[in-house]
């Protein structure tokens, strides 16, 4: 039985696991965006916080993913369900590129532009929403892009704690020494990563100022 046949015959399961995978990646990316972008904005304006925040996000990034899942297991409420745990872990991993790129994007805005805006009487809020964020948007989006691609890959490991996703095929294949099964998980995951990368890259280009 070749891979293609397997995928066709098990298309229900392939689809289900792909959707599960997308759900894990989508929710965790959304959470990371909601936390990471505001944090990036804060540290871009209060440089004192810059080092501790970026250092923490960096440290999280260095924890091996299986270990992180293990650490999070004893947490109340979260530990009860594997998908909650997986989402939390994926969110934590996605934070660094988001915080860093938001920070870099805002700090990269031409100081003359910010100065002129402030001198003309824009409030901090107007400056942020009308000047800084629009000019930083493509850098921020490239952070989202990196975060999504990392998450798609990492989410396969979520299957190790029973959170589902395409990792199911991979772990099952590993256990059964079945390469086809491994590929049935790995290929759709790779395709998802490529798709996310290309579409976000396209969006990034569209939104780039100048």
């Amino acid at each position: 039985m070749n891979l293609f046949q397997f995928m066709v015959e098990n298309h229900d399961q392939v689809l289900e696991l792909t959707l599960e995978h997308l759900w894990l990646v989508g929710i965790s990316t959304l959470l990371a965006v909601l936390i990471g972008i505001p944090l990036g904005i804060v540290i871009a304006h209060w440089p004192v916080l810059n080092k501790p925040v970026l250092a923490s996000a960096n440290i999280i990034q260095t924890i091996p993913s299986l270990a992180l899942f293990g650490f999070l297991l004893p947490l109340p409420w979260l530990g009860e369900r594997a998908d909650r745990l997986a989402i939390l872990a994926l969110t934590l991993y996605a934070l660094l590129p988001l915080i860093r790129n938001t920070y870099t994007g805002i700090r990269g805005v031409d100081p003359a532009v910010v100065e002129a805006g402030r001198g003309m009487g824009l409030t901090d809020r107007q400056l942020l929403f009308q000047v800084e964020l629009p000019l930083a948007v493509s850098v921020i989006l490239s952070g989202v892009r990196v975060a999504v691609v990392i998450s798609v890959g990492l989410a396969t490991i979520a299957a190790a704690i029973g959170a589902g996703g395409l990792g199911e095929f991979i772990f099952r294949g590993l256990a059964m020494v079945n390469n086809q099964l491994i590929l049935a998980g790995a290929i759709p995951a790779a395709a998802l990563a490529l798709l996310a990368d290309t579409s976000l890259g396209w969006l990034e280009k569209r939104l780039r100022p100048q």
Partner: protein
Amino acid sequence: MDRVSTNGVAIEFRDVSYVSPTGQEVLSRLNLEVFRGETFVLLGRSGSGKTTTLKLINRLLSPSAGEVRVDDAATAGVDVIALRRRIGYVIQDVGLFPHFTVERNIALVPRIAGWAEDRIRERVQELLQLVGLEPQLVSRYPRQLSGGQRQRVGVARALAADPATLLMDEPFGSLDPLTRDELQREFLRLQQHLHKTVVFVTHDVGEALRLGSRVALMEAGRLVTVLAPQEFLRASDPWVAAYVKAFKAGLDSAANRGRE
């Protein structure tokens, strides 16, 4: 040359000192008065404190000691956003918003001040004409303009809400000599019928003497002297004389080379 007599003080510095966050004293005990409707030029070398002086007026910086007064009120006591909106601000790098069209750049302050769209459109057209730009430029982006055009847009943007006061920080500093000459001429023409109170920063003696009603010479955070352009060339003060000498040296050497 029409000298502006004492018809009211628009901006006043009383014993103003400014110490930078790094602890360096940039300005020490500065006292000066800018009269309504005059072009007050701050002349000096890089680091002499001219730009700092300018930024103290619209409170981009706050004095470490002393008081800056605009329209008879200490700037420390007024709403900073309202203060800045009634003072036009033009800087050397122009600071046009690269993601805004010419129209949105010029209309920036009127729009945040909540003007009606009809009135904004009218005002933008009026301003383009005033600064000598073609009306069809409204939909262009700053990167599609020449340096001179960008600077004109910068001036139009600063004038948009019709502020009585204009702060200009080396606005023509990065332009080529011909464009600069053209814009200086336009500035004089504009100022002749707008009569704004202008504080103009430059390190170019020629520009200072050409545009200024009065020229304030600054050196190392201190005000050396304030003179009318005619007095400036005759002044005996050593600092002024040094500037005049440097200014004339340029002209003389060019003339001499012609004779060789």
